[in-house]
């Protein structure tokens, strides 16, 4: 999931009989699957939680461009370079759709971006891992975008109108990302030499567990889930989505002719799902807390981009002002 551990600030979910008339009318609308729109009344905690969730989602799209940007100048062919640039441009677009949706809640884009740069806002843990070989571009598209799709498909039905509409748009574009990633890996496995095939397995070995962590802590350790589900800004639990992702990904993994770095991964006939090994949650919490392999570099790169681009933004304003004056004269 691109938004992980989103704090709701709510200790206990209120029942309908504990709510004020306004709160009850709001909750009943949500229960009836009626979308909440920007000008509608909403509880303060709903607004704040959504701002946190959508901004975290937007930040993830933006920071998510960095591990891929690493490979633009190193892509093996011109075709792959064009595809990679198109994908990266989409991520920028997705970040912007989401920042727009967030602004409809009264949040200021600059302020929220400042929170990212000062370490007060999170983004998905997955983007704090390095992309070390070309197969990583395939594995990121297939596994990381694949995990994001599982999450985002259900968020198309989220209760907040602008967020839901942004998700619908994003999902339409995202399937290209996953397919191009898988195709990179398939090509390497079917036409590559031994070293190239090893690169694919190496990329999967490194990204498999971090991709599973994208869905966030297991349900037992997700204190905010109950409220987020009641508000329908989350539609399935972390564990449900993780299982769905694994179930759909393993056959694709087998088709590639690769394996997952999990000896316990196997089909469970009784459950009708794949069983899998324990996730190393301490690693996840460390990365979220800022101690992953690339956290510092990612935020530093973002900050530098904003600072170095300041003169361009100032020049654009000066130019617009001058043109206005000339038109008036």
């Amino acid at each position, binding site marked *: 999931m691109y938004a992980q551990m989103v704090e709701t600030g709510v200790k206990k979910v209120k029942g309908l009989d504990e709510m004020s008339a306004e709160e009850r009318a709001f909750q009943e609308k949500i229960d009836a699957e009626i979308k909440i*729109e920007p*000008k*509608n*009344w909403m509880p303060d905690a709903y607004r704040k939680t959504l701002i946190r969730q959508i901004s975290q989602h937007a930040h993830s799209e933006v920071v998510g461009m960095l591990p891929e940007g690493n490979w633009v100048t190193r892509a093996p062919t011109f075709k792959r370079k064009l595809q990679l640039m*198109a994908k990266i*441009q*989409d991520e920028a*677009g997705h970040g*912007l*759709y989401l920042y*727009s949706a967030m*602004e409809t809640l009264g949040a*200021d*884009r*600059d302020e929220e971006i400042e929170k990212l740069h000062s370490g007060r806002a999170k983004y998905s843990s997955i983007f704090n891992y390095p992309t070390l070989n070309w197969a990583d571009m395939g594995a990121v598209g297939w596994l990381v975008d694949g995990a994001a799709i599982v999450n985002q498909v259900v968020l198309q039905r989220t209760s907040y109108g602008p967020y839901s509409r*942004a998700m619908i748009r994003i999902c339409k*574009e995202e399937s290209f990302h996953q397919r191009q990633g898988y195709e990179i890996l398939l090509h390497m496995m079917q036409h590559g030499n031994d070293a190239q095939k090893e690169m694919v397995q190496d990329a999967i070995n490194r990204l498999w567990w971090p991709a599973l962590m994208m869905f966030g802590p297991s349900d037992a350790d997700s204190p905010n889930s109950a409220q987020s589900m009641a508000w329908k800004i989350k539609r399935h639990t972390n564990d449900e989505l993780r299982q769905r992702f694994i179930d759909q990904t393993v056959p694709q993994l087998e088709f590639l002719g690769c394996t997952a770095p999990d000896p316990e991964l196997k089909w469970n006939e009784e459950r009708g799902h794949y069983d899998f090994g324990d996730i190393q949650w301490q690693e996840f919490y460390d990365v979220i807390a800022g101690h992953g392999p690339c956290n510092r570099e990612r935020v530093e790169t973002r900050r530098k981009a904003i600072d170095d681009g300041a003169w361009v*933004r100032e020049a*654009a*304003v000066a*130019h*617009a002002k001058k*043109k*206005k004056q000339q038109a008036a004269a």
Partner: protein
Amino acid sequence: MSQWTLFEVFVRSKHGLNHKHVGSVHAADAQMAIENARDLYTRRNEGVSIWVVPSAEITATATDEKEPLFDPSEDKVYRHASFYELPDEVGHM
């Protein structure tokens, strides 16, 4: 960016269809808003024409006006073709 203006973006998808609201962009002026909207909302042949309007220039109905404004049309079923029952012999009309 706070010095920039928020613009709402409308895109006409195919010849003959209305412009439709697709989202918003930040820009220093209208020309830049068009350029940003082109990059953001028409990367896959989504449009043949773009309008941008400063968000602050849009006047909208308020939520508490919803009932007085829109409810009166609810009980005017005779405004719909399906209200009028014609015998089958008349054929499609």
